[in-house]
């Protein structure tokens, strides 16, 4: 077999040269080199594992000029010299046949990363050399103590190379990892969960995870039935991330402008500038957020509501979506920013921090201040019921606890909730300090979040779920 493999840099240069030779007006080539390794366990034993490597090339060719510009987008894995030629040719041919793109803008002018020539960064199973034996120890201990452990550890490194006919040559490598672990009592009647994001597993101690699960299962030695209804509820940072990530995805400027989102004004236009919370709530994204660093430029493989393939390489900077409780910015591409009359584009950024100015303390501190109510662990199966109010439904999962006079006094049944995360911002009773968090529902895909614990005085538990 004589398939010739190309380096990422060669793929970009050859792709751009081939597109020019085929008569394309412009071209963007995105190469993503990924490596990942994972361990999965259940019932105190390993269930699956894997070491994967991927190489993914997207060619975006443009043909024509100004408002008449059309695009062709073709993605392939496992690119060779021959298949790249075919891929570029198909992208240019597709652009020629396409109707003009609504979002056409000049391609982003280029800067060159200092490390452009570097090889892709990578991870391997050796990342678990210390973690795996310690995990093994906890699995054995759980068996001997008649508890059950279930979990997943994942580590990946993505290296992006983005080049364009406008001179762009940017390279960025980013690690991402997480652990999520569930503990159950021997009779499976009680359940607890902990999760955390990590960049390198150096800060993850399986023994500490096991100790926290054991503490939580200990809370369940007393079980209490609580009826549905509106309850004073402490949401720890993980549960707040479960809800805030969904809110984050509703921040699309075009949807709001067109009157079909919770951020649309009933009389037309958007709710920009409106007060969502009387508390000094901040929702901010910034590629440089410490510990949550993410790609500092736009990577768009297709155009959508607030994404545009023409924006590839656009620099991302700190953005306040909500500032001092007011809706400050909605997500836009350069095209949709013009459409809705925004001064500059505000593309999505792959992280966020939600905070309340002046809030200090932890989940335990909020519990200590609560006379009677509930403490949640995390939320699950969250889905939109009514986009008009952003009403979400979902369930509590793996640990709901009764709080009496500032102390956890037992475990409670699970609930189905119906709540709007936008409404919740106006009903914050108390908040703690913002910390790195890991959403149970979305963390596997969106793990770069920081959130505070919140006390909601009247969280809407719609019915009881028998799940345990």
């Amino acid at each position, binding site marked *: *077999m004589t398939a010739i493999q190309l380096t990422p840099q060669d793929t970009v240069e050859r792709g751009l040269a081939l597109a020019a030779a085929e008569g394309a007006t412009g071209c963007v080539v995105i190469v993503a080199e990924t490596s990942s390794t*994972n*361990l999965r366990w*259940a*019932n*105190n034993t*390993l*269930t*699956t*594992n*894997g*070491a*994967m*490597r*991927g190489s993914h090339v997207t060619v975006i060719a443009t043909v024509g000029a100004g408002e008449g510009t059309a695009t062709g*987008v*073709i993605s*392939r*894995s*496992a690119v060779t010299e021959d298949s790249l030629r075919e891929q570029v040719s198909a992208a240019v041919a*597709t652009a020629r*046949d*396409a*109707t003009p793109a*609504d979002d056409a803008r000049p391609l982003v002018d280029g800067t060159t990363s200092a490390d452009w020539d570097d090889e892709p960064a990578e991870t391997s199973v050796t990342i678990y050399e210390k973690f*795996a034996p310690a995990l*093994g120890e906890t699995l054995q201990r759980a*068996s001997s103590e008649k508890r059950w452990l*279930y979990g*997943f550890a*994942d580590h990946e490194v993505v290296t992006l190379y983005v080049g364009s006919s406008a001179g762009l040559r940017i390279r960025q490598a980013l690690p991402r990892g997480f652990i*999520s672990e*569930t503990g159950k009592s021997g009779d499976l009647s009680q*359940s607890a969960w902990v999760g955390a994001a990590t960049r390198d597993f150096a800060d993850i101690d399986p023994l500490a995870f096991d100790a926290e699960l054991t503490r939580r299962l200990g809370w369940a030695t007393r079980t209490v039935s609580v009826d549905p209804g509106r309850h004073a509820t402490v949401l720890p940072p993980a549960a707040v991330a479960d809800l805030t990530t969904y809110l984050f995805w509703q921040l699309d400027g075009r949807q709001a402008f067109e*009157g079909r989102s919770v951020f*649309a004004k*009933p009389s*037309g236009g958007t709710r920009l500038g409106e007060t969502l919370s009387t508390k000094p709530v901040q929702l901010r994204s910034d590629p440089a957020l410490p510990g949550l660093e993410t790609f500092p430029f736009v990577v768009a*493989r297709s*155009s*959508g509501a607030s994404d545009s393939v023409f924006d590839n390489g656009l620099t991302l900077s700190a953005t306040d979506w909500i500032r001092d409780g007011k809706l400050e910015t909605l997500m836009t591409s350069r095209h949709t920013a013009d459409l809705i009359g925004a001064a500059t584009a505000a593309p999505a950024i792959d992280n966020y921090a939600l905070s309340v100015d002046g809030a200090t303390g932890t989940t335990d501190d909020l519990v200590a201040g609560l006379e009677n109510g509930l403490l949640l662990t995390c939320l*699950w*199966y969250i889905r*939109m*019921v*009514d986009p008009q*109010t952003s*009403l979400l439904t*979902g*369930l509590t*999962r793996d640990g709901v606890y009764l709080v009496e006079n500032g102390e956890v006094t037992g475990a409670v049944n*699970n609930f*189905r909730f*119906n709540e*709007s995360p936008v*409404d919740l911002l106006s009903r914050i009773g108390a908040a703690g300090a913002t910390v790195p968090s890991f959403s149970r529902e979305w963390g*596997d895909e969106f793990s770069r979040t920081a959130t505070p614990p919140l006390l909601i005085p009247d969280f809407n538990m719609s*019915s009881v779920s*028998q799940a*345990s």
Partner: protein
Amino acid sequence: MPDIDESFNALPRHALADAALQRAYDLGATFAEFRLERIRSESISLRDSVLESASDGEDLGLAVRVVHEGTWGFAAGVVLTGEAAIQVAEQAVHMAQVARPINAEPIELADEPVYDDVTWVSSYEIDPFSVPRAEKVALLTDYSDRLLKADGVARVSVHVASVHECKFYANSEGTSYTQQRVRIGPDISAIAVDAETGRFDSMASLAPPVGRGWEYLTGTGWDWDEELAQIPGWLAEKMAAPSVEAGVYDLVIDPSNLWLTIHESIGHATELDRALGYEANYAGTSFATTDKLGNLKYGSPVMHVTGDRTAEHGLSTVGYDDEGVAGQQWDLVKDGVLVGYQVDRRMAKVNEELLGTARSNGCAYADSSGHIPIQRMANVSLQPAADGPSTEELISRVENGIYIVGDKSWSIDMQRYNFQFTGQRFYKITNGKLDGQLRDIAYQATTTDFWGSMEAVGGPETYLLHGALNCGKAQPAQSGAVSHGCPSALFRGVRILNTTQEAGR
């Protein structure tokens, strides 16, 4: 029936497999399997009849899974040379070695006959990737225009996803096959916005994703002309409909809505890996635990649910699964009682006595070469009554109730007890007759209560195959496509919520 794509057959399938399997054997693997997969995908989106995006992707790679000293090891790569295939086999063995200390159960697999270099192709007429892009966009623009030009429609979104999947599988037992499947999923929706109140709502086509080709978009298996003509009227009626009064109602549920309730409350609940706890940290477990096999009253006696990987045009339909097991059909719930599970070869072996059979029913699936095969859902379908009633007859049996059509929002708990669903259209039933649309409706129930309240299922003429392209499961997350057939059915006394009240308005 179409042939396996020539360009896939031209890849050095057997040479790569032989190299990888030989290396795994030389390193001491007691079982090894090789997959070469090429998945072509296309996504076309129109926003208000303007092309928003169109992209074309191909994922090609190979994977090796081994059993080494009783432990699984899996690795995947994208370079298609013999040398690279050997390296992937070595990585899989290395993975098994690293994982060995945390594996407490030696892996054994259920036996399966050997299939020697066989071929299977799904049932479709026109490969979507053979139709020029411009022709596809023109058709979708026409469909979009028909809606956008109608009174009361402010916005129209159109999205079509197409997949062409080629797989070559070989294992150390001597089985090898080449399989090709095609599927397509249209998503067409009209949106109305009330300029005075700001209220907005949508009405989507009920056309399900199916295992068919482009012919589906031009009228084979779906009447587009009729449905597109009706959507604006349905949407206008919904915008003007009264809000429901929360309470308890009798329901007649159309297959276009009931399929999703089957998927969530039966499909996932009868996955043996969930019942055994393998998904406890992610997708969740199941209330239908193995001690309840043969005695759990899942629902009323009219309830008969099957699993299959054989239904024509089914999204989960295969010739062979990702462990080399041939597609089958079997019972999951019979006469209202839990009688079966969906399994793979490992679970079939470990639970041979419980299941009463030594064979896997063929539910192993990996969504790409980069992912490990896990137990994934078969087509799980509620069977109609042989001489059962029509939908109109079911409606005629209801004094004060609601007829629910089309799926929308869905959610269910980690053990598959408590669920809540909305829909596209809700018709009030008064004295056995439809009495106009209602809005702001969600139905909420516990799985066994709900299926226990099923008084009647419709006849075969009410049976339809619906489904989803994007069912999520496992860590790392994998996406699966699956179909669910069902008739219309009548349920007594189900809790209905008013979603506006739930939002505290």
